[in-house]
Structure formats: structure tokens, C-alpha cells
């Protein structure tokens, strides 16, 4: 069997087509689950595989499914989070473009395991053209009886609807995503209740990231042990690392969970170009606190990065070279969060805007000595106090930049 069979981003010709996917052994795992497994065993297998959510939070996927009440006559939904909005992240796009059937197969297995008959794929508005390929794949799968009514001739049905977002970062937050699908303003809900209990249209709902679900056929097809063997104990499988910025070969690298950050940057992505040194690395999408060059000997997995004071997040690695002023990074960061805050809760709405205004003022040469301390204080005012995780997502990376690159920023303030 070719290497492509176990890759999330296969390289074979026309890899997104059903025939190519079938050549790679596609839909065998779904067939196995639907025809020969008990739903509860599907969940157990995924739990055993240590599959942690690839969207950013790293919550164990099987555990998440197990929170959805079993049985019951009412509707339950599966929502696929394809609102890949985290700056520096482009892994789900690659799956949607090169391997949409593996996502669909993963959805079928998940829906079968949790007892769901209707699923939504929430695709960010900016991926509108990709959604066409996704819809084609859904049609192909339906034609072959892999999706729709009576899958594989069994009594199991699954309807899949592609829903296009309108370009809001916050709709990647799972409850804001639900609001958006329901046709309302995309802003987060209070938790609890969690979506597993009260989710889409107030029904129990499983929500998973694209990459998370694309791993599911591998787990069911080859077993939890095989999957664990490709990653770390309790943190199984590979990860799609997107590397951008000051490297020779920016791109997407599928590597085992727990690969060294320095290895990914220096070996796989070719290190920084001639004459450039690394100044900082953001390891998991813009919201992950930046690391200094002396902090790169860290393994890329959820726990190791948390210990290093950052997070694996979406595994989008942004390498910042020494020619880039940290103030410029801070400006881009502050503008992004101020632009994307939904405005619902006070600390995020005002905090992101206040930080942005202050950073821009520093950029205009109007900085004051107290500004950096004040930015840290504003970030403290947001951290852990907002309605959804976006407060932390906006506060922590700002705090990291100001703390770790204080000397350089102080020169910018004093300019």
C-alpha cells in the first residue's frame, strides 16, 4: 500500500476524486464501522487512540463524543468546524482541497458512533471556492451509497450540508459557529450548557475540526494502537504543521505529534534564508504566545507547549526573522484581534481596541514610558474574564511579545 494511504494530504494524481480515494483504501473504515461495529465501540476505539482535537484546544475527541447523550428520539447534529481563521493556519484547507473524502468518511464514522443523522460542514467564507470541491465530493459519495440514505445498504443514514460562513474569526469558536449556522449573529454562547448537551438548534451536537475527523478513518481502519504508534502516548497520530514566515521552504508538513519545533523549522522547512536569523517563533497560530530563539527545543505536542508557556493550538508555525521589528508584529496582532472581536463582552470588545489604539500610537512615534506596562495591564484585564476563549487568545500573545521582547519595544516607545 502506498504511503499516500496513511497521509492526510496525499500526493497522488487527482487525490480529491472518489476513485483516487478508493484506490487508497478509502471508505473501508466507514464500511467496517457501519457494518460490523457497535456505535459505542467506535467511540471507545477513538478514545483509546488518544485523538486530541486539532482545532486548537486539544480536547480528546472520543471523550467529547461520549458527552452527547446516547439514544433518544430527538435530533442530534454533527458540526464540522472548517472555519479555519487562525492566522498562520492552512491545514484544513489542504484537507478540503486534496482529501475531502477522508473528511466525509471520518464524519460518517463519527455520526455512526454518536447516533447522528444530519451533519453540517461550516466552511469559512474565504474558502468559498473550496466549498465547490467539497460539494462535488459529497455528491460522489452519495452516488456510491457512502452517504445519504441507507449507507452501505445498512439502515444508517447521514445527510451532509455545506454551510458557508461570512468571514468572521469568532465563528471558529464552536458556539459562535452554532449561532451562525442557525442564522443569527455569530457570537459565542455562555457555557455551560455545552454543545454536546444543548447545541445546534438546542439539540445535542458534536463539533469537531476538519483535521480531527480526517484522522478518524485511520483509527478505525488500522486500530487505536497503530494510531498511537504514530504519535505520543495519550496524544496519538500525526499533526499537520503549517510553517510560514522566515524559512526557505514554507509549507505544510505532516509529522508525528511530538516532533521537535527546531527540527520542523531547521530540517523540514529549511531554516531561515541566507543572512536572516530567527527572532521569534509563534508555534500554534497567532494566538499562541511567541517563543524566543532559545526556546525552540520543545516538542510539538499539547502538553510540552503548555509547559513552555505557549500552546500547540492549530500548529501553524510562524517564523519571524530578525529583520522584522517586533512592533510591526504587535501591530498586526493587535489590529487582527481588534478587528475580529465580536464585541459581545466588555473586556474583549474594549480591551482589543484599546491595545490596538495604544500600539498604533507607539507606531506613530507618540509612545509613552508607561505604555508597555499599561498594555500588560490591559491584557491582564482580559485574561480569564471574557465570555469565550477569545479574550485569552487575544491577550496572551500580546503579553508574550511585550514581555519577551521588552528591550526592543522600549526602544520603539522611546523613539
Amino acid at each position: 500500500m502506498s504511503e499516500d494511504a496513511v497521509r492526510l494530504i496525499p500526493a497522488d494524481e487527482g487525490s480529491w476524486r472518489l476513485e483516487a480515494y478508493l484506490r487508497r483504501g478509502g471508505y473501508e473504515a466507514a464500511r467496517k464501522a457501519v457494518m460490523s461495529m457497535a456505535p459505542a465501540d467506535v467511540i471507545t476505539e477513538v478514545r483509546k487512540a488518544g485523538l486530541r482535537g486539532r482545532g486548537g484546544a486539544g480536547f480528546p475527541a472520543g471523550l467529547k463524543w461520549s458527552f452527547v447523550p446516547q439514544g433518544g428520539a430527538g435530533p442530534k447534529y454533527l458540526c464540522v468546524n472548517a472555519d479555519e481563521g487562525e492566522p498562520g493556519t492552512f491545514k484544513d484547507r489542504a484537507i478540503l482541497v486534496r482529501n475531502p473524502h477522508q473528511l466525509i468518511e471520518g464524519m460518517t464514522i463519527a455520526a455512526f458512533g454518536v447516533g447522528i443523522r444530519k451533519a453540517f460542514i461550516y466552511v469559512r467564507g474565504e474558502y468559498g471556492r473550496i466549498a465547490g470541491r467539497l460539494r462535488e465530493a459529497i455528491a460522489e459519495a452519495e452516488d456510491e451509497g457512502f452517504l445519504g440514505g441507507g449507507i452501505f445498504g445498512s439502515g444508517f443514514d447521514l445527510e451532509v450540508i455545506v454551510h458557508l460562513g461570512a468571514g468572521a474569526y469568532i465563528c471558529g469558536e464552536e458556539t459562535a459557529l452554532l449561532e451562525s449556522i442557525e442564522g443569527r449573529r455569530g457570537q459565542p454562547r455562555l457555557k455551560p450548557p455545552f454543545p454536546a448537551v444543548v447545541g445546534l438548534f438546542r439539540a445535542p451536537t458534536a463539533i469537531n475540526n476538519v483535521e480531527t475527523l480526517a484522522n478518524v478513518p485511520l483509527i478505525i481502519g488500522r486500530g487505536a494502537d497503530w494510531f498511537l504508534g504514530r504519535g505520543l502516548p495519550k496524544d496519538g497520530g500525526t499533526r499537520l504543521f503549517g510553517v510560514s514566515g522566515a524559512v526557505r521552504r514554507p509549507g505544510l508538513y505532516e509529522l508525528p505529534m511530538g516532533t521537535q519545533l527546531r527540527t520542523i523549522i531547521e530540517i523540514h522547512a529549511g531554516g531561515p534564508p541566507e543572512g536572516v536569523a530567527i527572532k521569534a517563533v509563534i508555534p500554534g497560530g497567532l494566538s499562541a504566545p511567541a517563543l524566543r530563539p532559545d526556546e525552540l527545543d520543545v516538542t510539538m505536542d499539547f502538553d510540552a507547549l503548555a509547559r513552555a508557556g505557549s500552546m500547540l493550538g492549530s500548529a501553524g508555525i510562524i517564523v519571524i526573522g530578525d529583520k522584522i521589528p517586533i512592533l510591526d508584529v504587535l501591530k498586526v496582532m493587535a489590529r487582527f484581534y481588534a478587528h475580529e472581536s465580536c464585541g459581545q463582552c466588555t473586556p474583549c470588545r474594549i480591551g482589543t481596541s484599546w491595545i490596538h489604539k495604544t500600539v498604533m500610537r507607539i507606531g506613530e512615534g507618540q509612545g509613552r514610558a508607561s505604555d508597555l506596562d499599561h498594555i500588560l495591564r490591559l491584557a491582564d484585564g482580559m485574561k480569564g474574564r471574557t465570555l469565550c476563549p477569545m479574550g485569552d487568545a487575544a491577550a496572551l500573545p500580546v503579553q508574550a511579545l511585550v514581555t519577551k521582547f521588552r528591550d526592543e519595544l522600549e526602544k520603539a516607545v522611546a523613539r
Partner: protein
Amino acid sequence: MSEVKMVGLTIDGRTVRAAEGTNVLQAAEQAGISIPHFCYHPAFEAEGNCRLCLVEIEGLPKLDSACSTVVREGMIVRTSTAPVLEARKDVLEFLLAEHPLDCPICDKAGECKLQDYYDRHGLFPGWFLEAKEKRQKKISIGKGLLLDRERCILCTRCVRYLRKVTGTGELGVFERGVRAEVGTYDDAPIDNNYSGNLVDICPVGAITDTDFRFKTRAWFLEKRPTVCPRCSRGCAVIVESVSGYPLEEGERRVFRIRAGENPAVNGYWICDFGRAGRRDIDEGRQERVIKSASPESELSWQKALADVMARIRSVPGPERAAKVAVILNSRMTREELTLAKRLFAEGLSLDKIFFADPKPGAADGFLLTEERVPNARGVLQAGFSPRLPDLDALAASVEVLLVFGSHLLDHFSEEAVSRALAKIPSKFLFSAHTGPLDRLAEIVFPLAVSAEKSGTYINIDGLRQSFGRAAEPAPGVVSEHEILGCLAAGLGLNVGEHDVR
């Protein structure tokens, strides 16, 4: 009824028992511990957007919003630890960063929650050095309602009120981040009979009422509860008036009527029709006794009433049933109606006791009823069978007529009424407001309106509600209760003053 399960928890070291399903904010309030909040309102599901009610809950890694946390057995809550106070201060600092400091010209000053909380929990030096967002400050969003977007703190109480209470949903939040703002859809105005409540629930001065705007300051107002007299629902209202404030001629006494709270009747809301009752108290009032024979002379109501008694006495006892008539109304209190029953029906044995009330209007399906009087049930309970008079029959036989209220004109033309009254030798009008009947009466007595009286109304559901005086009447204005009591005393009738119920 199933018994409500109680949950025991500890708030700030105090043992508190609260009904299952109560949130921490309510449970604390019941125990006398107030947790500051903007967005939470007991009528809606918690939204948790203002983040001011953050408290410490033992076992949780972060502060959590008290409004959205349901009480659990054994829960330990702390509402005034250093991290809680710090979080409160920070939220206030965030809100005030973008909030205009126009308190000196803001209607809400003195009753603004942002102002109050800053005074109690804030008091920090201002650190905001950046330019504040410029927004529209005077947007007409519907009947007499103005929106100031700079003052708005986006608590969304108004948006949720229109979605969940009136179901009309005229307001929404547009844009996002610091640019987020409340507005109407395509400029379609707020158009429902409950829009005045938006001003009551706005915690800051973002939504103001043109009827109140720039007219006075909140701290001058005396706030007293009463029952709304404008329909038979009997909603709790608060009358806000000034007394002992130097009044110019024609200046307001009552500045506004707001919703009072009564879970059994109106919850937290009143209709705009009831709210507009402010004008009934202040405008078009009959201010003194006017005798048509000498309109300029100053005359006390007690002296004028002697004329009424003399006319009644001049009709021999046995003929009074036919020759003396009264027209009452269903705005009179239960106490006044009892007195009227004893005086006119039992004491004077009158046959001709009629009622003239405002014509019914359309009910709106929520609070406003068809009956535009507060005490139709009180009339029945007092033993009256209310009916309109026949004007021709009145004109043909009656010699003395006492008219309470001016609602004959709701049923008969002014011409028909004046034709009939012209044939009646003595007619007296007791009315709170000036009107076309005034010139037809021999003497006009200035009556108190219900906000100026104490008494009892019985509402559409049979609920008996007693109320006290909510606004001071002008000197010389008199209630029906006093008039009837004096008439009874003057005519030597025992009406059991101490047993008017």
C-alpha cells in the same frame, strides 16, 4: 403544587438557602448581598456579556459570572475578594474608556448604574490616552425614544427586551468589536405599546425619553408607588414628582411614570398608554372651585359644597328619589364607591344613580385591557348596576344633578348634553380636568386624580390592590372621598366612616 426544592450554599461566609435553579446573583440578592451587574435582568435568560458580576466560586480555576451560574448544594461563593474587586474595577475601566463623560448633561445621571458602580467599585485614575470612538448621539429610534450610541455599553437589554418580551424585535446589534452598535433595521422605528420600558431598563443614558429629556434631574424626584388607573389591569407604577421645588406657573409636578414591579400583575413592565398617564396628573387640571355666577371669586370647596347640600335639602325627602340624580364613574376607588352607595342609594334613597365611563378601547393582548377604567369590578362589588343615563328622561324630571367626571361626552354629543342640562335647574360638576361641561355647571369642583389619592382598585382578575397617595395634590383640590364624606355629614347621614370597605 409541587414543593420548590431548596439548595444550601455559602456566599461570603453566610449560609444562604435558595430555590433550585436560582442563579448566584439572585441568591446573593435574596441574602442582602448585591453583586453589581449591567446586562443581567431577572426577566431574561442570563447573557453574561457585561462581565461585571464575576465572582469567585470555589473549585473553579477562573472567576465566573454570577448571573449565569446556577446554585448548587454546598457551593462556596465569594463576592468581594481581591481578584473579584480587581475584575470589577477593570470592567468599569474598560467601559468608561469609551464612555463619554457627559454626566452633567445626561438625563441618567443620579440613577445611572455606571455612575453608581464607578462610585462604589471603581474610583481609579483614568488611563485611557487614546481617541474615543465617535458615534451618533441623537438617533430617533421610535416614539419619543432617542439613542445615544456613545453612551451605550452594549448590555443588549433593549435588544433582548424587544425580542423576548414584546416579540417585535425592532433592535439589533450591528458591526463587531469596538464598532458594534445597537440600531433599528433599515431605520424602521420601534413601534409597539411597550417601548417606554426600554428607557427603564437601559442601565445608562443610552436610551432616553423625549418627554423627560433635559426636564429635571433624577435626584429632585420623589418616587412613590401606586396602581395605574388607565385600564383595568392594575399595573404597579412609580410616580416621580417634585414637591417643595419652586414651581413656576404651568411647570411640571410629575416628571414621569415608570413601571413598578408586581409579579402577580405586570412583572416589570407597563404599557406606553399607562406611562402617558403622566399628562393626566399634570395637564388640563381643574385647579379651583368655579361658580358660574361669580367666576372670579375665590371660593373654598367646603363653602361651595354648602350650596349643593342646600339644593338637595330643598327637594322634599319623598321626592328626592325622582328629582335628585348622580352620575358616578368607575375610576372612583372602592372606598369612595362604598361611601357613594351608602350616601346616595341608602341615605338619600336615590333611584337615579348612573355611571359614565370612558368608552372601551382595544386590548393589546399583553397588559392593556379593553376597559379604560381601573375599578369596574369595584363598582359591581359596591352593589351598583352601572348604566348610562337617558338624557331626555333626566331633563324631564331631575332638579338636582351631581356629575362626577366628564365622560358623559364620550357617549353623547356636547350639544345633546348641554340641551339636557339646560332643563335641569341645579347641576354640579366634580371633575379633575377642565372641559366643555364646565360652562354648563353651576359649580365646578376640582377633583384629585387617582395618583393623588389613596384607596383600593379591583382589577380585571378580581385582584384587590390598595395604594397610597403617590403625588401631592395642588392646594384646593379635593378627592371624591372628602366630598362624599362632607355631604353625608352635612345631610346628617351616618355612612359608617370607619367601615368603608
